[in-house]
């Protein structure tokens, strides 16, 4: 079975994005092992002189390297991605670069009606930067708007249409992970071998 890492894109104690990933973990238990990952204990990135990864970052990096794919669920703060998630990605790009060529699925939940669409579009652009270069699943936006009302007491997504939509996207993602593996094997990312770095170039 496929092993996936689900990154909770916030350091908040209460999070509808965490709820969403927990729901996916349970709902898709037959199809994949999804391990949730919390980023709240990662230090804040500050471009240190030393480019070795702090232990918490190394830990996340190892998990990503071993996983077949990554799901990132992002809140929306000020039409963008929360600072803590950005900081996590800065660490990864600055040190071990484990996301290069890694299949990534983006999900998001927000209190507003638009359900993190703007944050997701920023996240796509960020993951496309040369030091991250993830393989982001195309044409697949899964968003939960008005997220405070979206889950029932058992943590299940209340709207059956939403559940179906999520199932379709998730099934596609499973295939996308396989296809990407093929693609990467035959066309490895050029940056990967060179290990692109802004600071060295």
């Amino acid at each position, binding site marked *: 079975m496929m092993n996936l890492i689900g990154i909770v894109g916030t*350091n908040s104690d209460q999070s509808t994005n965490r709820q969403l990933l927990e729901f996916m973990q349970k709902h898709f238990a037959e199809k994949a092992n999804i391990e949730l990952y919390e980023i*709240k204990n990662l230090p804040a990135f500050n471009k240190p002189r030393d480019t070795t990864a702090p232990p918490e970052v190394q830990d996340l990096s190892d998990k990503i390297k071993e996983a077949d794919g990554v799901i990132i669920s992002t809140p929306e703060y000020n039409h963008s991605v929360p600072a803590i998630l950005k900081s996590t990605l800065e660490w990864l790009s600055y040190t071990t670069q484990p996301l290069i060529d890694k299949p990534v699925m983006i999900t998001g939940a927000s209190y507003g*009606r638009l359900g993190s669409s703007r944050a997701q579009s920023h996240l796509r652009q960020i993951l496309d*930067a040369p030091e991250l270069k993830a393989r982001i699943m195309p044409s697949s936006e899964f968003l939960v708007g008005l997220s405070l009302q979206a889950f029932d007491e058992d943590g299940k997504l209340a709207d059956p249409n939403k559940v179906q939509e999520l199932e379709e996207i998730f099934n596609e993602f499973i295939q996308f992970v396989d296809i990407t593996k093929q693609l990467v094997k035959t066309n490895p990312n050029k940056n990967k071998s060179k290990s692109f770095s*802004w600071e060295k170039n």
Partner: protein
Amino acid sequence: MKIVGIVGSNAEFSYNRLLLNFIAKNLKNLVDVEVLDIDEVPMFNQSDDQTNSEPIQYLNKKIVEADGVIIATPEYNHSIPSALQSVLEWLSFKIHPLDGKPVMIVGASYDVQGSSRSQLHLRQILDAPGVNAVVMPGNEFLLGEVHQAFDEDENLKDASTVQFLESCIKKFIRFINVVTIIDSPEGMKDVSSTEDLYATGKIDTTIEGVDMEAEDWVEQAAEAVGAVEGDTYVKLDRGILTVNQLNYFLKSMPAELTYADSNNQFLYYNRMYEAEDMLASRTPAQVGNPLAKCHPERTYSGVAWVIQQLRKGKEDVVRAHVPTHGPDKFVVHSYQAIRDEEGNYLGINEYVQDIKPIIDWYLKQTGQQLTGGDVDAVSGATEKVDTVSGATAQD
């Protein structure tokens, strides 16, 4: 004009800091720029509110007091650095100092594109309803390949770059002026000319023959009219007090009081404290000045507007919350019309109060609480967001 420049990086060394320092140093004939760092600001966390911490309050105060803000952003992974993002999250969570504030974006990065992508993200973020800054359109100042841009003295090497930077700053100054006028309640129109703020006119009580701007105007004017003082009795409606009693009485008022007459001359304040200890500072030498001398020029339109409301009888009082005092105070300036029995406008009683102790006392006495605790506070940002997303969904 007072500007704060925010360094969008928390790194020990930053080219964006050099860029702001260069602006502060080289364009000081145009603007007064104070460069602020963000490295002390903690990572934003919705469930650990640190809005009241020193670094955030410091930034808040500086931004609120400034006429405009320049943000210099690096580019990290095609976006703005998390450190800057975190600052903007704090400044849109419980407090909103950038609301309505003119902002100019500049940026330096290693790529030839010089932070163009991060500048675009920053624009979108500053536009979000919780931040709601007024970002200057166009004029992206992008400094690409920044590791080659400065000489040993930390000056920009390229003369045409310096020239462009200067033209951007000039444009920003004009932009700030325009935004200030738009924000004044009458819309685009500058209404400063509706009031004689230099007090060139004369009313029955105007004391003539004394220079209004003299530091000892009070002493000179008192001599000119033979003003009484000390233990002399004055008859009032309704009672009799000595001038001393009247003074102590006014100084015991729970507010800073200021009297400006209908000729827009500043005649009196109940001097309880030294200027620096006042909620709205006044100095003894200012008394007698025309109002134009008591306010910065950019506020003339707003001042004139307030006086017009009172003079024309549209309002009896105009209030404004002044948020520069930090979270422990809620300072309100009330401009109360002073009128005679016939309702003729005689001037303004401006009283300045911190009303927080009164509200706290009221809540304690009645056992009530303000709503807007932890959960609600988050939706504070959210409510605003919702309204806007609602509007977006419609179009």
